[in-house]
């Protein structure tokens, strides 16, 4: 390689290193995505710099600004705030966090959540449990039956809520719930099983939270496993009854 080529390569490497140094992740600190289109990012410019650079469009560079790092003086923090509140910072370029991490923006969510048909009265949602079977452990049978039965209203509430938001859901579902109950009586894990597990993610998330919140009496020995069947049903639509 001759001297000129070496110089060229050096320049390229320096340029690339500078570029890399200037980048910051576009993912918000809670891991949430920025705009679905993915807003580009840049180093944090000083507020004064931002105000003085009107050539950039709002979508180009998110401002990674905040009150300031620990060492920043109170005066400087106050100045930043005043600039923000007086419109001197291009606030539309601050990072956008409007969805849960890894969840894309859903353009139909508002319409779904604000137009829940009440022509199918969700209060008719039915949930029935089969008798719990102890697969392992020493948990008392009567107590198990009682605690499992106590979960039913909560699971029914989850199902009602699910139906409110999914008015086209199938009228019935069957599956099994398996609980691992720790020696201290807390529920360690919840599994949903069955040949055809229905796709009801919101319902299962809610039902799992309910089951995990249950508390059995502490067992005398090791953890126990309990399984029981669940049937969800939503009787056929009936005429609306609005008060």
């Amino acid at each position, binding site marked *: 390689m001759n001297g000129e080529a070496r110089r060229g390569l050096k320049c390229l490497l320096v340029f690339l290193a500078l570029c890399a140094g200037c980048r910051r992740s576009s993912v918000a*600190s809670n891991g949430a995505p920025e705009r679905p289109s993915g807003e580009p990012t840049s180093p944090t410019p000083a507020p004064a710099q931002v105000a003085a650079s009107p050539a950039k469009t709002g979508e180009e560079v998110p401002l990674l600004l905040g009150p300031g790092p620990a060492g920043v003086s109170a005066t400087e923090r106050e100045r930043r705030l005043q600039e923000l509140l*007086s419109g001197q910072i291009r*606030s539309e370029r601050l990072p956008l*966090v409007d969805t849960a991490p890894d969840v894309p923006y859903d353009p139909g969510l508002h319409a779904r959540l604000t137009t829940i*048909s009440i022509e199918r009265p969700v209060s008719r949602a039915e949930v029935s449990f089969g008798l719990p079977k102890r697969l392992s452990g020493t948990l008392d049978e009567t107590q198990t039956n009682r605690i499992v039965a106590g979960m039913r209203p909560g699971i029914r509430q989850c199902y009602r809520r699910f139906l409110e938001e999914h008015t086209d859901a199938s009228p019935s579902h069957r599956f099994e719930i398996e609980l691992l109950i720790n020696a201290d009586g807390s529920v360690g894990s919840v599994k949903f099983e069955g040949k055809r597990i229905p796709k009801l993610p919101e319902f299962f998330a809610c039902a799992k939270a309910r089951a995990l919140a249950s508390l059995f009496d502490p067992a005398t020995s090791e953890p126990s496993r309990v399984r029981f069947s669940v049937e969800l049903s939503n009787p056929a639509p009936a005429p609306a009854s609005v008060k």
Partner: protein
Amino acid sequence: MTWHARARAWLSLAAFLALASFSVRAIPCGAFFAGSRESKTVPSLSVEQTLILFDPEQELEHFVREIVIRDPSPGFGFVVPVPERPLIANVKVDPFAKLAAKFPLTSVESAGGMRKGGTGAGMVTAAPVTVLSRQKVGSFTAFVLSASDAKALDKWFSDNRLLVPQEAAAWLAQYVKLGFYFAALRYEAQEKDLKSGTTRAETVRISFKTPAPFYPYREPVHPTSSDLPRELSVWLVSTKEYTPVSLFQPQATSEAVFELEWKRPLREHAAHSVARADLESLLSEELSKLLPGPGGEARAPLRLQIFEDQKRSRAGFGDIVMVPKQVTPLAGPTLERSRKLMASLDPAVTP
């Protein structure tokens, strides 16, 4: 189901609720008729709909919020912390179905020409809790409170049959420290409501002075978080355009000051220039009277912005302050009146 189990479910389902901030997940019968649809509909418990009418000249915000209710437990209610003393009123005609129909949550163009409101002034007292007003608002009893002692406020809620979840104590204490006021609404359940199984919605208005639009967005830190979908939609009407900004502080490193960042917690769908007459025809008379800016001859168009939030958790996010998009003088008394908002965006600021 116990109250705690129910409260946990509401909290995790969507947001704040009993005594959380202004994001009730509530519950009983009735429904509203949604626009031109043929079937009767109700909103889900997981949706919050808000209309903010803000007059920058008067520094006056009307925060109009829909509350969805089904099967309320005794003690159901909620608290909205606001920077200055609020007025609370019932809104007879829910504006949200019409707003969503005419100004949907999608990116679109504008429509095409305006008035004002009025409300209270600040009043801080040295008493631990001062009840500034009590009135009936729809199905609720509404209290306006100021407090100088968080524990006393907690006790007041308990004495007045408003159940405060344990995790809300720290949340309330922060607002007491900042000298905020509290709009507390207690649902007065009727016997027929308790097992009706149907859902209905009521809308309330909370009006207060503020130099910039404020959205009580911060929630108590819940022990369990929910992964269920939820949605917040906001229609902001003013004479200027604003960007919603919130302080974000990751919970895991809450002690690390350098983690503090400002974020936009709401997606802006559109900003319309709307003739006042168009808005007057869309909104009920009671809300039309509250539109910002001069009425009469000087009927300049208003700005209507549409925002949406689909986050399932607000953990780490503070309250929202809407900052102006255009340079707006901030000095002297206005700066002084902005201290509480500044404290929402930087915990180092003392109001």
